[in-house]
């Protein structure tokens, strides 16, 4: 079985090393079969660019976001207290997140409970690695393809990050097209607010189908996402629309890792 070398915080600390960043993998990053590929791509990029980082591994636990959004403040705060304690034990200062929901809660909602960290979304981080020339694009895998980007609500509307993902896409040689509803006007994939973990309420359509239609209307061959939930929803949408041969869903980290020939 091939394996990526991913440094684990407890090991690094015991070796007397203090990694600069904590890579917060998130539950989807650790367990979702499709999204595990995104975690691997991002870890490969971090390894290749020699970023000083580590993951918590078995010590990582849910930030409590789905519990909080589902009204269970008690469970959320218990999780948050536990996470903050772990992070403080390892003297974590900077956190890298791929999941915008983890990013939002760690960045905006942990400070209220005593957890002050510099939290960076990987789209911003990738952009800075590209800006400084640390990331070298080696292959033009997607030449002559068209791509569009679906804004995750918790990244875009929630935290005003619209440009970073687009600049990351801009770094690879590909034709970019914008959807009709984009940036702050973007339409949700349907999974936020704990919807990911339950059936949708009765209606006449699934939200992810409504959004998949936007993607299809854009004429793109690839829809880029930057959130594990958006990935699940849009991949389902593409599948149910029977467009799997025409349209693929890829994460920003996968796009970059592929172009770095990793």
């Amino acid at each position: 079985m091939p394996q990526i070398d991913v440094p684990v915080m407890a090991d690094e600390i015991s070796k007397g090393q203090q990694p600069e960043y904590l890579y917060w993998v998130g539950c989807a990053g650790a367990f979702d079969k499709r999204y595990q590929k995104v975690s691997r791509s991002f870890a490969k990029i971090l390894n290749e660019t020699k970023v000083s980082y580590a993951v918590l591994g078995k010590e990582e636990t849910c930030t409590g976001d789905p519990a909080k959004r589902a009204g269970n403040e008690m469970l959320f705060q218990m999780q948050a207290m536990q996470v903050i304690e772990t992070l403080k034990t390892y003297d974590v200062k900077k956190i890298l997140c791929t999941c915008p929901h983890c990013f939002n809660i760690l960045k905006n909602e942990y400070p209220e409970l005593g957890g002050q960290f510099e939290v960076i979304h990987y789209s911003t981080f990738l952009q800075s690695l590209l800006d400084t020339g640390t990331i070298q694009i080696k292959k033009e895998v997607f030449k002559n393809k068209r791509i569009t980007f679906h804004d995750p609500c918790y990244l875009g509307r929630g935290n005003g990050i619209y440009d970073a993902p687009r600049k990351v896409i801009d770094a690879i040689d590909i034709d970019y097209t914008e959807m009709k509803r984009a940036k702050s006007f973007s339409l949700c994939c349907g999974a936020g607010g704990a919807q990911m973990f339950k059936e949708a309420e009765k209606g006449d359509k699934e939200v992810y189908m409504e959004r998949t239609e936007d993607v299809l209307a854009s004429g793109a061959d690839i829809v880029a996402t930057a959130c594990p939930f958006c990935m699940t929803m849009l991949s389902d949408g593409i599948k149910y629309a029977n467009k799997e041969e025409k349209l693929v869903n890829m994460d920003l980290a996968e796009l970059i890792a592929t172009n770095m020939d990793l």
Partner: protein
Amino acid sequence: MEQIIFACTFLITLILLGFTFMRLRAFFKLCKPLKYDGKLKERLSLTARVAFGQTKILRKPIIGFLHALVFWGFLVITIGSIEMVIDGLFGLNRSLAFSGIGYDIITASGDIFSLIVLLGVFIFLLRRLFLKIRRFSGVELKPKNKLDANIALSFIILLMVSLIGMNTFDILLHKEALAGTYPISSSLAAWINHHNNTSILFHFFWWLHIVLIFAFANYLPYSKHFHVFMSIPNVFFSNLNPLTFLPAMPEVSKEVKLMLSGDAFQEPSDSAPSRFGVKDIEDITQNNYLDSLTCTQCGRCTEVCPANITGKLLSPRKIFVDVRNRMLEKGPFLNKAPKYDDHKALIGDYISHEELWACTTCNACAQECPLNISHPNLIMDMRRYLVLEEGQAPEELNVMFANIENNGAPWKFSPEDRLDWTQY
């Protein structure tokens, strides 16, 4: 004589407004305290941008610009209204004319804006009457809400007609002696040229205009059009944080700390909160109530709501229409008897569980609201009541809670497998 009649009319207006103000103050007192962070500078800047700059309504550029013109017109025209009150009380005409060139600017812009507002509001009314715009309907919009919208717009049309009429006949009456500049009304006056009853018509329009202002001011607090008064304070007190910031519940923090410190059985020293989350009108904050009074039912929120677009019951606009109606229903009784219970509640009788669980917290509604109303956070507070007080979450969510509690992940995976993704 005219002065006495005016003073009496003005006094009646103030008394009626005072009565309304006291009534609203009593309603506000039923709510939890206003959240205010003291960030005066940021809040003034936010108010300048969103309220005075109309930045959010301009997200729909054409109709938004028309609204912005109407709003800016109102600001200028209000100066003229204040002058009329001074004139009326002291038996003067054009009492602010001493300001010279400034007066020319105020009157000229007021005069031009009165025509722009007239045309703008006329278009708004025609649009409501004859175009089928999806966001102008919905379960929460009863015929009386639609009538209310049309009455408010008609009021403004009459206000502008009477204002232009007043200026036109003032020009005909006082000719060159009249202070100020009136590009629109003077053209109209030149066209009419001569009229036998200029004095009577000037007085007629003057009185019509001021009485309409007084009537409109007293109508507004009972109308969805109350945003004319409430928009500026509401934007000032609105959310400065990132849209997806959901504040923690401090009352829960206390309990969690007790549990983690091992003193779970120790009774909390200070009185426990009456209720976690929002069930009924007395659980909302003053900010929520302010939001409900500010809502103009424009439906920009509902129009972009993914749940609503896909045919679910949730309509973010309905949440605040319900809050305002529920306060009207329960508020007066609660003010008489604090323990009053009509065996009804906001949740259940107004807002169903199904509506609350349909929200994706995408914040498109909050992003779109021209007056920065925050729908998702109130929806979250109602979910908090359902879960923390009633244990009434959809079954799949209870499974998710159990997974987090037992395995530290919302899915049923062991923490031991957290590094499996590194192998493939």
